């Protein structure tokens, strides 16, 4: 459905941040993209959604296609019209709009009022909590509700692909589980293709079907999640488990050498 073929992204015409990234997102499934801070995960998403241009970035090599139509270099609002929705890191709801108005804004590309009403009903069905908050300013919602709203808002454009940027950020583990469960249901029931960017590898590998691991601007590992979970590097560096599978103690990880601080 969505495929990224060997792209290279350059910021400000000089800074090379992605080097030959390729990945494939399939409908009805969750594909996850893991990696540490600064690995290039968000940049990959922005390359897809067309927001790179607003940050002086550019796809200089390779192609991005949605159902074999090229979308790299398109403007963000045109990409949205083709069926790609992005949920931003840190939620980024329109704080001064109510919940319902956020959803209406999310459905901006819909031509008919009826589609918007249906969309809103669908979002409230997936996230009943939001229905109770419909007339509240979204800036005052709780973190979990804001994340639900951000996902619901993205659904309003009836996308084929949804890009989720760290939905677990700053949320309590129970909420994260709840939200991930809903995302899983969405992928299945709405035949959505979900690209999930996460730092929380444990959660991501629990819900996803296929995964990629990024490090300093390139994909270093790829496979279905069973294979990834079994991979010893992933266990060591992303899941924090050792060979036997028990949780690692910090005593084994950190080897500080005491040194004099007053002379150096």
């Amino acid at each position: 459905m969505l495929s990224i073929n060997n792209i290279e992204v350059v910021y400000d015409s000089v800074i090379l941040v992605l080097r030959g990234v390729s990945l494939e997102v399939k409908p009805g499934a969750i594909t996850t993209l893991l990696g540490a801070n600064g690995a290039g995960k968000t940049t990959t998403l922005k390359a897809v959604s067309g927001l790179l241009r607003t940050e002086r970035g550019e796809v200089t090599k390779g192609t991005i296609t949605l159902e074999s139509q090229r979308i790299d270099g398109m403007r963000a609002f045109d990409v949205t019209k083709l069926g790609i929705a992005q949920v931003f890191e840190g939620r980024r709801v329109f704080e001064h709009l109510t919940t319902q108005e956020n959803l209406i804004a999310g459905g901006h590309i819909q031509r008919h009022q009826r589609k918007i009403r249906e969309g809103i009903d669908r979002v409230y069905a997936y996230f009943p909590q939001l229905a109770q908050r419909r007339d509240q300013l979204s800036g005052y919602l709780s973190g979990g509700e804001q994340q639900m709203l951000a996902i619901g808002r993205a659904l309003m454009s009836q996308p084929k692909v949804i890009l989720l940027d760290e939905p677990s950020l700053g949320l309590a583990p129970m909420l994260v589980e709840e939200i991930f469960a809903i995302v899983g249901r969405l992928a299945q029931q709405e035949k959505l293709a979900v690209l999930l960017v996460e730092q929380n590898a444990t959660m991501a590998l629990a819900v996803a079907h296929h995964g990629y691991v990024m490090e300093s601007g390139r994909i270093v590992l790829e496979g279905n999640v069973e294979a990834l979970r079994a991979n010893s590097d992933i266990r060591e560096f992303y899941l924090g488990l050792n060979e036997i599978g028990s949780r690692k103690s910090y005593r084994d990880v950190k080897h500080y050498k005491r040194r004099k601080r007053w002379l150096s």
Partner: protein
Amino acid sequence: MWDEAEFAFALLVSGLAIGLMYSLIALGFVLIYKATDAINFAQGEFVMLAGFMATTALAAQMPIWAAIAAAILGMIALSFVLERTVLRPLLGRPVVAVIMATIGLAAILRGLPPITIGAQTKALPLPIGDEPITLWSAVIPPVQVVGVIVSVGFLAVFTWFFLKSRMGIAMRAVADNQQVAMAMGINVERYFAIAWAMAGVVSALGGIIWGSMLGVDTQLSLIGLKVFPVVILGGLDSIVGAVIGGLIVGVVESIAAGYLDPYVGGGTKDFAPYVLMILMLMFKPYGLFGTHRIERV
């Protein structure tokens, strides 16, 4: 005693009427700030130019209605052009850059009419008679009645637009976060242009009404100075605020002029609103109806 009340009532009513006409001009400022986050220091010059457009059209033997239409269309066109050439290249730059650009723009626009059509004051007569309306002790000239009606009309239309229409909600979304709005499929630049065009229409009507009251010359642009106390009082991004702020400034001015001028020899009208503005900034920096920055703890 009775005379006192009559005097106060007259001051109050004329203050309210003038105040609503200030609101009309402040509305143009608020629209632009609300949608694009740009502080437009050239609002007074917009109003002045609209007046000049109308008088030029009249001088070309156009009927008054055609002249008004010409001023409105002219202002829409001008707003589009200015947004495209001056403001859009500054997108994403620091606020100061935009402020300086609009101040420069104001100076240029003020210089334009004297160069092209001369600096003498031109009359802009509206076909509404000059029979004033008397309300107990207050006497309101017909121009001000028209001003009041137009202001209230715009208030109603814009309030509906921003709260209920999809376009208005999209515009607020753009004001809230441009990048996210773009990802929702909203063509941000088009909405900026629409906001400027709306401000152009409001300024055109403001220019015609104020121009017919004061006469059209470069002095007309000084009306822009009244915008700042109005929007600081009401809140920079609030439509209702522009109206309430206008009413307050109008009344304060009129009362100050009525009661203080005899003692100090005049001029209080011009500084009283600014005293109020500074007090407001100290105690309520977002104004009466302005959007507070939301901070969740």
